């Protein structure tokens, strides 16, 4: 089963419906199908074995995704913000690719010796009729046996951010993506008036999933090329957006925005990609009482969502006085029907409810496959997510954090996320990170870096007291650093391991250790709000 099957069904079932772009002048299902044939012919003319997409999200992206699918070559969306050396290294892995380039990106392809056309040219050229490419799913059994390699080709390659090592290419095969769509979306289930707003970049799994799930549901998608809270809010109102997906940092900036925050047509807001602070989701639920919130947990390796917390779960948790139900506001809900999920102990043994361990998943949508490395699954086909978590009595999944981020203080395993959640509840804290630092006595000690909210006077002694009231002293950071900004990827993932180096090189970072309260945070200028949509890898110095 190929992605083009989904597109052909859409073209057949609701061909006139606009699926990408503005309601007038957008691309219909039938047009997307035609363009996919034309684009596939272009790929074949150049004998390309991959289609590399190096631009912001836009109408050229779904056309590229389905043209690649039709041609039987992978789409490789690359991060246009990467440095020249990193891009050169990734492009060298696709020496026979055809490139689609955003403004200024053609030079990258030239350097790599690759043929490329601009996104505008791609949209112009795929308008032309170049005949139909036959559907490989229509081959006979004899044809399949003769060429088993293209039975289930790679549809998309997504490179991991690779903060500690060279980026790995995650291979998502047609079967994985089709399995995800068929397992989680009902065909043509969207009303013609619905519109989904996309604010994630095209090299993120959510952007790929967004294209194929909305296509199958028959829902129009709109793209916000560069996220700002004001632009997001205006687009929701002007385009009567009914559903949207954001990462937590975006939601924080929207909720903090001084602009008109009314979203009269919005019915569904999903979030994921990074942990959502409990204080933030509570605020959002209070602000937008008509919106159904969806918390989605998934990885690139699992073709997006494997578990979700739906709108009713959110409202039930918010209204409940039962601590176990209330706690579910911080859970990622229950696994999708097509996913088997197990919590496993250190020896790989399955654990029961309430017991914390490694989250492992199995299912048709789970690729767990890396370029040059093969599939990372055990004998039973389970993929270890390297996330720690537990299931409650009713099967709701709680994520404690990345296994690699766990702080071991004395003999105690401490998940930074739990402490960060407390820090983020303090009214003067805008952002917070907790990390382990080598310590002679404890093995590791806990330190925290916080970004004060603008126009506030954050007293670290007060923050320490605040933390102590919520957590045991063994979980209270030994030292607080004040920073102007935390290093995050542009999709809001915290680059935790970069924080100690950042503090060491940032002379403006102020230290507030347990024994030294002499430094005054008020002497520091108010920090500028974190820039979302940029890789905020460097703390800014005071002006």
């Amino acid at each position, binding site marked *: *089963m190929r992605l083009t*099957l989904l597109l*052909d*069904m859409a073209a*057949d*079932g609701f061909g006139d419906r606009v699926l990408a772009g503005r309601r007038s002048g957008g691309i219909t299902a039938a047009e997307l199908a035609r363009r996919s044939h034309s684009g596939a012919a272009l790929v074949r003319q150049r004998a390309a074995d991959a289609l590399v997409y190096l631009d912001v999200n836009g109408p050229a992206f779904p056309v590229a995704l389905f043209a690649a699918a039709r041609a039987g070559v992978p789409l490789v969306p690359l991060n246009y913000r990467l440095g020249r050396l990193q891009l050169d290294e990734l492009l060298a892995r696709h020496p026979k690719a055809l490139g689609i380039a955003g403004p200024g990106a053609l030079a990258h392809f030239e350097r790599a010796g690759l043929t490329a056309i601009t996104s505008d040219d791609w949209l112009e050229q795929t308008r032309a009729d170049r005949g139909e490419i036959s559907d490989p*799913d*229509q*081959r*006979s*059994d004899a*044809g399949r046996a003769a060429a088993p390699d293209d039975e289930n080709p790679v549809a998309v390659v997504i490179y991991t951010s690779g903060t500690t090592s060279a980026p790995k290419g995650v291979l998502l095969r047609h*079967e994985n993506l089709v399995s995800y769509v*068929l397992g*989680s*979306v*009902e*065909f*043509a*289930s969207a009303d013609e008036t619905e519109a*989904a707003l996309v604010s994630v970049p095209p090299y993120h799994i*959510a952007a790929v*999933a*967004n294209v194929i*799930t*909305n296509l199958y*549901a028959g*829902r129009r998608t709109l793209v916000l090329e560069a996220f700002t809270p004001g632009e997001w809010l205006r687009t929701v109102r002007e385009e009567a957006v009914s*559903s949207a*997906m954001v990462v937590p940092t975006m939601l924080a900036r929207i909720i903090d925005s001084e602009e008109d925050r009314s979203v009269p047509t919005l019915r*569904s807001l*999903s979030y*994921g990609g990074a942990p959502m602070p409990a204080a933030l989701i509570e605020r959002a639920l209070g602000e937008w009482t008509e919106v*159904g919130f*969806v918390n*989605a947990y*998934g990885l690139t390796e699992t073709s*997006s*969502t494997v578990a*979700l917390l*739906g*709108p009713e779960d959110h409202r039930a948790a918010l209204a409940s006085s039962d601590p176990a139900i209330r706690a579910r506001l911080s859970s990622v809900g229950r696994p*999708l*029907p097509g996913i088997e999920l197990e919590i496993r102990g250190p020896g790989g043994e399955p654990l029961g409810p309430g017991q914390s361990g490694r989250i492992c998943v199995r299912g048709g949508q789970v690729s767990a496959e890396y370029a040059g490395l093969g599939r990372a699954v055990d004998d039973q086909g389970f993929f270890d997510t390297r996330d720690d978590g537990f299931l409650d009595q009713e099967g709701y999944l709680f994520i404690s954090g990345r296994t690699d981020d766990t702080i071991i203080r004395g003999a105690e395993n401490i998940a930074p996320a739990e402490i960060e959640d407390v820090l983020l509840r303090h009214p003067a804290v805008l952002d917070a990170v907790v990390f382990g630092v080598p310590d002679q006595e404890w093995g590791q000690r806990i330190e925290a870096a916080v970004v004060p909210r603008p126009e506030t006077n954050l007293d670290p002694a007060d923050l320490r007291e605040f933390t102590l009231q919520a957590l045991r002293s063994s979980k209270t950071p030994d030292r607080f650093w004040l920073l102007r900004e935390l290093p995050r990827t542009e999709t809001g993932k915290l680059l935790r391991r970069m924080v100690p180096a950042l503090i060491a090189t940032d002379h403006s970072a102020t230290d507030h250790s347990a024994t030294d309260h002499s430094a005054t945070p008020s002497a520091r200028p108010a920090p500028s709000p974190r820039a979302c949509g940029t890789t905020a890898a460097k703390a800014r110095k005071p002006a």
Partner: protein
Amino acid sequence: MAVKFRAGQQLVSAVDSTAVIVIRAPAQEGTLTCGGVAMAVPDQAVTPAAPDPSQLDGTQIGKRYVDEADTIQVLCTKAGRGTLALDGKPLQIQAAKPLPASD
């Protein structure tokens, strides 16, 4: 003629435009019919045939069809006039269990 089904397999109708894809394959061999006439695998020569007039309930694109014992599940990828049946027993539309959009 009974065949062994395989998940991902496409089958086309001999009596109308119906096409399905096998989502869940039964362990046993069987005969899938549309309008009373056996469906064919792609590339197999399809001899157009007249449907059984009593088996014209129609198929709907995007719907999943299952048998009573829940051994087979097919997804209709092209709609038509005929009724789907496995070994003579009509398939039913499986009720949708919608999930909220998460992407």
